């Protein structure tokens, strides 16, 4: 009896303290909001009643998980980019999925002679959701904060040396070295422009000790502090995010009033809820669930290819690669792979890039023709290389999957293709965690199939596949082996003008089209499906879906 009483008292105490907590935080939140922007809030209240009367312009999205913060300075994972893009804005932006970054908040920009100084002027009349006007100080604060937080995405600011703000509209970015990808980097979520007044008030800091001094993450996980079309009003990790229209958006808004984003990545659940109308956009479909929805009224299927690419890697070092280190054998393998078959196995939307730069990137030469495969030419090359009867080789493959496509599937397909020209492939499975990962990074694998996801949306990320680059070295491809190809690396990073960049990127793609230790197999597809009442839904590499382009019809 005594115990029971005790338990009751404890439970009561807990309930009381919880209620007290909730009450406290909500009252303090609303108090601070009210203080910041009385006008904005009253407008917001109005618009929310509006949307209730017009009713249906709420869009529900189901997307994948794997993240635990929405602080732009910390976000590096794939899916939060969609949220950041809706709530914050960047200096440059990818308006379409196959172009370069275009000015967004920026009116004009200019590189210095030696390409190490970038001068920007901001557009007029940009306001944050709080009502504050965006100035160059906000830009400097945001970029410095990302850099000094030293979080996962801090690398994006590596080439930024310092930022000067001569006046309210002008930003001068001093670079450590010429960086052809800087505009794309400035379009990355980590370079979103934050409302420095609001963020500072809530513990934010852009000082050099920001990694320890900055405490704004909790605030930025509860609401957003940007100039975007939407404002985040609620974030329950691994469950749900709510975005509401920014009533005082400085630009032109879409007619969506509210986004509810469910963090739920099971393809079958997404398929069911989409067909019953509970969700409007399903981001994590699979080939299998797509085929179930085919022909369903009111649902549009979207098969696009991502820039995540799988490739065969053949070590250039003969002591590691053995026969596959021979350029002739490498070319024979490139000719023997059945690209059309690989695209079928990976599912609709899969493409094979022309060479090491994925289709869809700025400057890309597009796709490798599926009738590139030529078994006779491949056999002839093998004979020339001294293997008329082919050879036996181990193909090491790990347990990872590229956007849901197991690498072992690709390995099996390649093995069966290479058998056609007499190369007898023995697949060796190794766990990523149990040695494969280290061997891959240290360049100890002779022949393997791997995949590569891009860090940010710029073709310069692919320069790592050149001799002496990070991935090149994993294939034992040193800069000395092919000095003329290796020097394209710096040539590409130094180019800033679109025409110059295009020219050098073309040169790179031609040089690696039929040469080198990499055979690009397939760009993974991203199967999505959405309710046909929406327009403007398109796959976007940086944002998955650009929520600022979606309208309800």
């Amino acid at each position, binding site marked *: 009896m005594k115990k029971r009483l005790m338990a009751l008292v404890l439970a009561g105490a807990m309930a009381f303290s919880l209620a007290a907590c909730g009450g406290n935080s909500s009252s303090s939140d609303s108090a601070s909001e009210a203080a910041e922007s009385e006008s904005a809030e009253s407008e917001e209240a109005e618009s929310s009643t509006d949307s209730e009367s017009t009713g249906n312009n709420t869009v529900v999205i189901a997307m994948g998980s794997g993240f635990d913060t929405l602080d732009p300075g910390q976000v590096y994972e794939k899916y939060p980019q969609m949220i950041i893009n809706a709530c914050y804005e960047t200096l440059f932006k990818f308006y379409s999925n196959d172009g370069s970054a275009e000015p967004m908040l920026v009116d004009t920009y200019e590189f210095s002679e030696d390409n190490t100084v970038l001068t920007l002027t901001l557009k007029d009349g940009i306001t944050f959701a709080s009502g504050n006007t965006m100035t160059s100080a906000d830009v400097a604060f945001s970029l410095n904060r990302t850099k000094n937080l030293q979080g996962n995405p801090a690398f994006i600011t590596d080439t930024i040396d310092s930022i000067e703000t001569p006046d309210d509209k002008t930003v001068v970015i001093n670079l450590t070295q010429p960086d052809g990808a800087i505009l794309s980097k400035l379009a990355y979520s980590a370079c979103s422009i934050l409302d420095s007044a609001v963020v500072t008030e809530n513990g934010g800091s852009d000082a050099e000790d920001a990694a320890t001094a900055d405490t704004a993450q909790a605030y930025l996980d509860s609401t957003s502090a940007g100039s975007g079309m939407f404002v985040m009003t609620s974030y329950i990790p691994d469950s749900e995010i709510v975005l509401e229209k920014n009533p005082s958006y400085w630009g032109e808004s879409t007619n969506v009033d509210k986004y509810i984003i469910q963090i739920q990545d099971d*393809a*079958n659940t997404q398929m069911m809820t989409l067909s019953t109308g509970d969700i409007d956009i399903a981001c994590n479909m*699979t*080939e*299998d*669930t797509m*085929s*179930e929805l085919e022909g369903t009224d009111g649902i549009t299927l979207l098969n696009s290819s991502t820039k995540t690419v799988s490739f065969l890697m053949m070590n250039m070092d003969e002591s590691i690669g053995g026969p596959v280190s021979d350029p002739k054998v490498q070319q024979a393998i490139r000719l023997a792979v*059945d690209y*059309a*078959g690989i695209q*079928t*196995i990976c599912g609709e939307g899969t493409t094979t890039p022309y060479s090491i730069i994925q289709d869809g990137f700025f400057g890309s030469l597009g796709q490798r023709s599926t009738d590139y495969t030529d078994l006779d030419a491949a056999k002839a090359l093998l004979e020339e290389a001294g293997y008329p009867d082919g050879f036996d080789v181990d193909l090491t*493959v790990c*347990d990872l999957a590229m956007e*849901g496509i*197991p690498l*072992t*599937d690709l*390995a*099996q*397909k390649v*093995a*069966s293709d290479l058998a056609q020209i007499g190369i007898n492939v*023995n*697949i*060796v*499975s*190794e*766990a990523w*965690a*149990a040695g494969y990962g280290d061997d891959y990074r240290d360049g100890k694998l002779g022949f393997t199939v791997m995949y590569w996801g891009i860090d940010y949306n710029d073709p310069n990320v692919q320069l790592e596949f050149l001799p002496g680059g990070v991935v090149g070295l994993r294939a034992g491809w040193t800069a000395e082996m092919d000095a003329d190809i290796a020097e394209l690396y710096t040539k590409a990073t130094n180019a800033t003008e679109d025409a110059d960049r295009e020219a050098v990127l073309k040169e790179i793609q031609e040089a690696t089209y039929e040469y080198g230790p990499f055979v690009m197999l397939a760009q993974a597809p991203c199967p999505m499906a959405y309710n046909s009442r929406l327009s403007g839904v398109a796959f976007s590499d940086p944002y998955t879906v650009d929520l600022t382009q979606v309208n309800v019809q």
Partner: protein
Amino acid sequence: MIRAAKKLFKSNYLFTLGVVVCIFWIIMAIFAPVVAPYDPIEQNAEMRLEAPSLAHLFGTDNFGRDIFSRVIYGGRYSLLAGLLTVLIAGIIGTFYGAIAGYVGGKTDNIMMRLSEMILSFPSLILAMIINAVMGSNLFNTMFALVIVAWPTYARLMRSVVLSIKENEYVEAAEVLGASRIRILTKEIIPNSIQSVLIMATTDIGNQILMFSTLSFLGLGSAPPTPEWGMMVSDGVEYFNKFWVAGFPGLAIFTMAVGANFIGDGLRDLLDPKLRKQF
């Protein structure tokens, strides 16, 4: 004994069913090249994910491979893994347990604590670790299964030996001056092996399941080997195409259940304590 077996067949239908199922799979495994209509690893991109039809009884998988042929070939690996694992683990466990039980004292203590160390790990996790560290292929998977399985046999054997060694005929052999090894191999093991045999028959089904589980998790032999567990895991991606995972799953189920029925039947036959009145 033969009469008892006949009675067993007549009275225990489950046992009979188990025998029929297992013999069916053994025949399939041995004559796979004759029975299977297609090459189990031959790919055909145009025929992928076809539903079961007359041409492809069990349909085709992601690579357009015939699932029926793959299931038939797959029996080889599962049967081999089940039987060999039990055989090797049984032999190791028998001798280990017999020595520990017979010698007794400190040796017994050390030996049994060692085996309990292995038993104290969750068996599946331990097998996965061994497999992941050594690299996964058919041999290593079986090795991992043996490592996990033998201590159970050792424990059982030891407990039986402890009671057997008190028997008068053992004392008699000792008095006659027989060596320890002779007593162990001629007196003790033959008289206690029966309980290990009973356990082994019921264990075959478990080992087949365990083997399939490991290969489902990607820790079996490398693809494109047609292994049942791996085929089920391939099918998980194609949830709405039931035949990809369904038929290999059914194969695992029948084989494991069949082996268990046989095990139960044999236990009834061999175990004097449980023997029914025939």
